[in-house]
């Protein structure tokens, strides 16, 4: 490695609360891979779905403010949560294209908008900046025999021209990363279907119906577990899984991992450092069976 990779880090609200294990495993994995990660000081909530749902100007302004705060830290902005990633990219895209909205946002945050900083999801950093070869070289314990259903959800790739992470209908970046660390990936139908997202608070019945279809499809494809890059998808698939099993009188028992947990496991990090104990569907029996712990 010639030059050390360094990033400004925007964890987002969930990673400081319900998705603490995503934050922990991200920090530990990046440390292990010698990638620098400095948290943006005093970042704000990006507004997520509720803000753009009812007040686009607020959503754009919150994100523009965060992009401004991120300027204090050197390096591209690394984002873990798919929703924060989507909102920040959406803001850059919209303000680039729409001069009226840009002026309004500049007035709202009382500062010029800066759009040249790059916003990157962790997947991009692992697959492209670090590169699959270097990632493969860091593997100490290949995840051989582990069949993973890669779940992209909505916001990592859609809509076209905005996140520009990968192909909008048939992405492979998650599979590429997992193959580099020795895991097997399954082909399945629901990898880009919506889980119901923030309806988990207002209309949980919707989430139960949509998420059931996702778990059902992953199970039918022969997956041992699911991998996600979004705390909200994780909450719906993991925290609500037992409830879903009850409603549909079925059993899935599919552990749901974050990207950084599976990659970290392959890089030899311990269960403690990856926060595996925080997962609701216990992954230990599966990992022991596959001799990965």
């Amino acid at each position: 490695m010639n030059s050390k990779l360094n990033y400004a880090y925007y964890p987002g609200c969930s990673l400081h609360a319900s998705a603490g294990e995503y934050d922990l495993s991200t920090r530990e994995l990046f440390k292990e891979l010698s990638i620098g990660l400095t948290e943006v000081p005093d970042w704000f909530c990006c507004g997520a779905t509720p803000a753009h749902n009812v007040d686009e100007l607020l959503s754009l302004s919150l994100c523009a403010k965060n992009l401004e705060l991120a300027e204090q830290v050197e390096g591209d902005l690394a984002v873990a949560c798919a929703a924060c990633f989507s909102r920040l990219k959406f803001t850059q895209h919209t303000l680039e294209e729409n001069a009226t909205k840009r002026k309004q946002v500049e007035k709202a945050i009382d500062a010029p908008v800066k759009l040249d900083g790059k916003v990157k999801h962790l997947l991009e950093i692992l697959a492209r900046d670090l590169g699959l070869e270097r990632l493969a070289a860091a593997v100490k314990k290949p995840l051989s025999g582990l069949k993973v259903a890669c779940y992209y959800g909505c916001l990592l790739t859609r809509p076209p021209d905005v996140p520009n992470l990968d192909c909008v209908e048939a992405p492979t970046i998650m599979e590429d990363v997992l193959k580099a660390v020795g895991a097997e990936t399954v082909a399945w139908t629901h990898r880009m279907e919506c889980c119901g997202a923030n309806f988990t608070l207002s209309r949980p019945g919707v989430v139960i119906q949509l998420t059931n279809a996702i778990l059902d499809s992953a199970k039918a494809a022969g997956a041992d577990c699911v991998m996600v890059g979004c705390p909200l998808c994780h909450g719906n698939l993991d925290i609500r899984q037992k409830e879903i099993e009850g409603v549909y009188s079925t059993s899935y028992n599919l552990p749901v991992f974050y990207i950084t947990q599976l990659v970290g496991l392959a890089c030899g990090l311990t269960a403690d450092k990856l926060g595996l104990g925080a997962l609701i569907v216990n992954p230990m029996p599966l990992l022991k069976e596959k001799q990965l712990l």
Partner: protein
Amino acid sequence: MKKKKMIISQETMDVDFVRKVEALSGTSVRRCFQCGKCSAGCPMATFMEHPPNRVVRLLQLGQWRRIIEGRSIWFCASCETCSTRCPNKVHLASIMDALRKLSWDADGPSKESYVQLANKLFLQNIRTYGRQYELRLATVFNVKSGQFLKDMMLGPKLLSKGKLKMFHSKNKNLSEIEKIFSRIEEMRKKGEAL
């Protein structure tokens, strides 16, 4: 819902409203030729009384009241599938945002109150704390929606796993967030922004 007969005339067509939607969303409803691809891919269409393509058709006809009186816009998950697949580049997800904003401003005549309540509490939390405070969000939602026992079984489990925090620290630069909120309110009062 009982079907009300639709009369298309100059009196019932409100084109100004549609122009507002187009300005807010940055997309044109007139580009839609009703192929229905948006509704075919919509994960939430089964929960809506007007599926996405019909929402656009109603807008083309200036019949926006039918849309915002219903619950369709509040049952959109913002998954962006419609915008992704539209052959005419109608950004339907942004149209949904614009409709919700205008409905919200009109203090939501829609019967769908749970989603609106969740949104309202979410935004209040940002203004008060700078970041999301999940435990408070869920608790206040349950109290205000009168569903005291909703997800009660999940609470202790999430707390024991460290997934819900009892206390939440406020941002040090909280005054800056308040300024953003109030500047936007000010701009709207002066008519500088929609």
